[in-house]
């Protein structure tokens, strides 16, 4: 009944809790048995106490019933305690496994899954499976025990009358199963329609200026009304199913208890049964039917948890493509040397390689620039040096050692990366700047800020270095984010700098000032810079022109202007002829 992935996930991560689970089953068994004993005791009170007027018997059996109740409640509380431990521990362990697996991933795997999807898998999806485990421990395990126990007790009480239970269980299961099967697709549809409605609202809010500028309020209203009506329609349908289920279930329950009274009376009349058994029997019937109902309802959770389990297992089954070396090289003698030799990169399953036959090197004190249009493979190239991707052909060597043999920590300690999308972490300006060098002094931070042209605005912030930064850096502007991201790399004082299109959000003047300051700061380091703007890279010692994953030109600005048509075209597109001549 459980899917393969769900079985594997549960099998692997519930193993440490096997003893807990066994105890939960035992405790639930005790609780259920105690629960089933109560009606029998009550029957005794009626048959041997009330009917015979034996008050002593009533008292003693009353006390016995209390004792049994106490056993039941203690067993249940212990079961909940163990169940909650198990389920929450299971969730914690799975989350831990998924998180660490994701951390081990290369950028390639992260991009394949997509960060938002990975986040959902680590949080929501794990939570879903965890809730299934919890509900199973607390409630679901009890259901089959109650059913079996109830049937056994019913059979012990009166065999022919048990036929009623059989009929009632079948009828109940069919009805609930039918309603649940209709409900499942409706819930799916409901979720989709709610998503559509939310999207329409989101677009209405984010696009408010455009909507108003184009006077499309009526159009948006129609779009909204349609989405709203769709959601309402589905909500009505599911609501009606819900409204139908409860009365029908209650009717089945009530009618079968009346049937028990009627047929039971005949058996009593024949002397085949005692009257106390009748009430006991009624209780067994209720218990069995309710556990059927509970089980069916709980099982609704299973398909959803199964989907989540598949998504979680996908992450856990994915191996990173940049496995750390088994015998890492822990020390190197050279500094700031990077060499790419016939490097190629192809995404799995993709026909066309993103990069082909690239060979070039970076040297200390030199600036190498890469320029090319979108989709030319620039960003992929940048990811190869810090081994965020592994090349699928050729080799990348840093400080004379192939990156695949180098200790990852050593490799990363050499590199300062400024990514295309400048991401800041929640915390303060200082905590972000110290990201790569936790022991950096305030002076070091200010120096980096000065170089990155960020000192002025940081100084103007209410708490300067201690000014809070929101998650992702959303509380500072794009240009500020970019400059802080540059400062962060500078604080680290690496041997190799990688700027991945890191100046795009800066205006031309700031860009120019920043580059001038950078030149002093990065003096002895090797610099790899990827850019769109020609002005940004004009001073580079070597410029590589990338097109369709190949180097189609290399040289200085002047050389390329003279010899390379692609480069000249790029320059031309950025400055019209008259501007260039001005």
């Amino acid at each position, binding site marked *: 009944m459980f899917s393969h992935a769900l079985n594997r996930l549960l099998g692997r991560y519930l193993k440490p809790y096997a003893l807990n689970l066994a105890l939960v089953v035992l405790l639930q068994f005790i609780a259920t048995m105690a629960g089933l004993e109560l009606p029998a005791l009550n029957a005794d*009170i009626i048959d041997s106490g009330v009917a015979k007027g034996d008050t002593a018997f009533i008292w003693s059996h*009353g006390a016995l019933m209390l004792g049994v109740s106490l056993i039941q409640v203690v067993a249940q509380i212990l079961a909940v305690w163990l169940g909650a431990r198990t389920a929450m521990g299971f969730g914690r362990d799975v989350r831990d496994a998924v998180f660490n697996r994701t951390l081990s991933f290369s950028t390639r795997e992260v991009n394949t899954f997509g960060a*938002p999807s990975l986040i959902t898998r680590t*949080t929501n999806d794990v939570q879903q499976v965890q809730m299934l485990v919890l509900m199973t421990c607390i409630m679901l395990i009890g259901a089959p025990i109650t059913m079996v126990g109830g049937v056994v007790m019913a059979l012990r009480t009166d065999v022919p009358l048990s036929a009623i239970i059989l009929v009632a269980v079948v009828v109940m299961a069919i009805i609930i199963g039918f309603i649940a099967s209709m409900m499942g697709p409706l819930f799916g549809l409901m979720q989709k329609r709610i998503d559509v409605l939310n999207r329409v609202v989101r677009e209405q809010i984010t696009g408010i200026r455009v909507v108003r500028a184009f006077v499309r309020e009526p159009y948006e209203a129609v779009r909204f009304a349609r989405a709203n009506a769709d959601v309402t329609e589905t909500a009505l349908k599911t609501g009606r199913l819900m*409204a139908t289920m409860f009365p029908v279930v209650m009717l089945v329950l009530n009618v079968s208890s009346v049937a028990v009274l009627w047929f039971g009376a005949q058996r009593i009349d024949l002397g085949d049964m005692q009257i106390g058994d009748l009430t006991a029997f009624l*209780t067994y019937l209720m218990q069995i039917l309710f556990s059927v109902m509970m089980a069916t309802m709980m099982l609704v959770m299973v398909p959803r948890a199964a989907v989540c389990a598949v998504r979680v297992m996908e992450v856990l089954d994915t191996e990173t493509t940049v496995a750390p070396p088994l015998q890492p090289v822990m020390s190197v003698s050279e500094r700031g040397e990077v060499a790419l030799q016939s490097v190629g990169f192809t995404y799995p399953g993709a026909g066309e390689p993103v990069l082909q036959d690239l060979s070039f090197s970076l040297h200390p004190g030199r600036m190498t620039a890469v320029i090319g249009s979108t989709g030319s493979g620039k960003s992929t190239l940048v990811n190869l040096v810090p081994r965020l991707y592994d090349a699928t052909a050729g080799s990348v060597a840093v400080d004379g050692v192939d990156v695949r043999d180098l200790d990852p920590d050593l490799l990363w300690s050499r590199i*300062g990366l400024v*990514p295309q999308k400048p*991401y800041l972490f929640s915390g303060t300006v200082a905590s972000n700047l110290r990201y790569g060098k936790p022991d950096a002094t305030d002076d070091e931070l200010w120096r980096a800020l000065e170089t990155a042209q960020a000192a002025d605005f940081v100084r103007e912030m209410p708490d300067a270095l201690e000014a809070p930064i929101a998650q992702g850096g959303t509380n500072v502007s794009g240009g500020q984010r970019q400059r802080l991201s540059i400062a962060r790399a500078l604080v680290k004082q690496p041997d190799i700098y990688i700027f991945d299109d890191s100046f795009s959000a800066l205006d031309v003047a700031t860009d120019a000032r920043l580059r001038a300051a950078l030149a002093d700061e990065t003096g002895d380091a090797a610099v790899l810079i990827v850019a769109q703007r020609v002005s940004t890279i004009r001073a580079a010692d070597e410029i590589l022109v990338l097109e369709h994953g190949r180097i189609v030109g290399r040289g200085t600005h002047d050389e390329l202007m003279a010899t390379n048509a692609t480069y000249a075209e790029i320059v031309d597109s950025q400055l019209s002829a008259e501007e260039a001549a001005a």
Partner: protein
Amino acid sequence: MTQQKQQDLAPVGPEGPDGAVKVANERPKFAPQRRTGGPMGGGPMGGGTGEKAVNFLPSLKRLVSHLAPERVRIILVILMGAVGVALTVYVPKLLGYATDVIFGGLIGRNLPAGMTKDQLVDALRLAASGGPGAAQVLGMLQQAGMPADPDQLNRLADMIARMTVVPGQGIQFDTLAMWLLLAIALYIVGSLLMWANGWVLNGVVQRTIYELRRQVSAKLDRLPLSYFDKQPRGELLSRMTNDIDNVSQSMTQTMSQLLTSVLTLVGVLIMMLTVSLPLTVIALVSIPVSMAVVAVIGSRSQKRFAAMWKSTGELNATIEEAYTGHSLVKVFGRQREVGTEFAQRNERMYDAAFGAQFLSGIIMPVMFFIGNLSYVLVAVVGGLRVASGQMNLGDVQAFIQYSRMFTQPLTQVASMANLLQSGIASAERVFEVLDAAERTPDAQGSLPVPTAGRVAFENVDFSYSADKPLITGMNLVAEPGRTVAIVGPTGAGKTTLVNLLMRFYELDGGRITLDGVDITSVPRADLRSSVGMVLQDTWLFHGTIHDNIAYGRPGASEDEIMAAAKATYVDRFVHSLPDGYDTVIDEEGSNVSAGEKQLITIARAFLADPQILVLDEATSSVDTRTEVLVQRAMAALRRDRTSFVIAHRLSTIRDADVILVMEQGRIVEQGNHHDLLVRQGHYYDLYQSQFAAAIEEVAA
């Protein structure tokens, strides 16, 4: 008998799938997310989010007032509910009668035949008294299997006296059938009423929620833009989606359950009293005990749940940062620290979640135990009273059922309180949107037809917030067909100028005229229809490229749409897309580049064919070749139209008829490129710092 356990569980069932609607949302919402727990995950009672309403009663009243159109149906629901509850409450009494018939038959069969009930009772009392003739009667009774002990005989007499019994006769099946058929009939009617009740109520709630959503959506159109500036978008969105959903859920559950629960409580109490006063007193003792348990455990578990949501938020934030900044974490060598932070927060969440789930999990067993205590007491005391002839067995049976029926609605009412709190808190947040100050109503003037496109700012004052004046005494005239370039540093008020022209904001002083007509004297729609706008952030909606262009003008023909696409170079890249114009722009818009999106928005403005254009040039790095196209498309668009361009490119600025140099909300210089350079003022400085260097650098 221990049915109570299951009755307590029962209301949880329907709630499960219901709560499930909210889960499985692919787009994660982090820290403020509520109800990640899936079904049952809400709180100790599976409901509340722990939020408290600020003005509970007024807000409740207001929410109820939204139900006004459904008044008739609600009265119907109440009536049906009342009748349904009355029937459900009455049936155990019938079943009690049925039990009496069976019990009576059982006892009666063993009694000596040929006597009436009264004769038998008399005989029993006589035998017990030991008076004259007792021995003879006693012997006869003992032959029939009766006890000899006088006390027992007396009790037997008392018991039989209260019973429906014909000595010597077995169970009277006619009478039994009558009671049982009646019970079935009432059950069927009760279920029908319950069903109709749920059906109607569902409609009432869904229609009300539909209307509430519609009102909020319509309200958004009437809010001034300044409202959206102040409100984080995610927050507003959450009010429209999560909060309305929450109102809907708590309304559905409280309205159906609160009503029946309260009615059931009243009904059951009445029935219990009619059966036996002493037993009622015993049963009622469980109420304060149950309430105390719910209050003590419930409030503790609420606290744990709050802690759990808090640590969930923190954990999710850690996860989000680690994943979004994945490559930085690696290259900056922070993998270990991030791992440790995650492990700590994961552990903290485990502790909080365990506490919350454990405490909420034991409420049910404990309530059940209390129910059992009262049940045992009722059974013992009831049994004693039956044995002593003060009560019928059937009455005890009925009473036991009533006492079970009593605990369940009690628990429900307690949990409703939480649910209602959270629902009202959400409703308040929705009402806040509905109550926000609206923009001034439209005036009914009209613009001259055709509009020539002469725009004038006359002594305009404006500021976003009263304490920071931005634009003061601005004067500006744009003649028809001319291009006005606006330049200046960030924060100089360039975009503000556009916002004012579009009347997204109201002026603090002065006026803006279009062809001599004050723009506040005409409907906003008329003004905006004559102005086309291309913004830096390219807003496209989820739909095809074709539909996004067609957005510019309702009712545009296919030819016109194609013409717009061709004129603005959209046509060129569309042909390289597999689905052409039917390519769907998704939320991230990953299939179309930023520059291409910009082209689509230009095509949209082109199609709208306005007299006045507002263009905000993009500075962000767009693929260089596409950028050339964007530039050309904008130039094509500007032809013969009065244009306001927030300009970043030198070519645009130089071609402009008028250049406005803005600084701190003021126009510090006006003129054309040549004149301004000659003047060697602000523009000259700006030109030198921003462009000259770059040009030299590249062109040298």
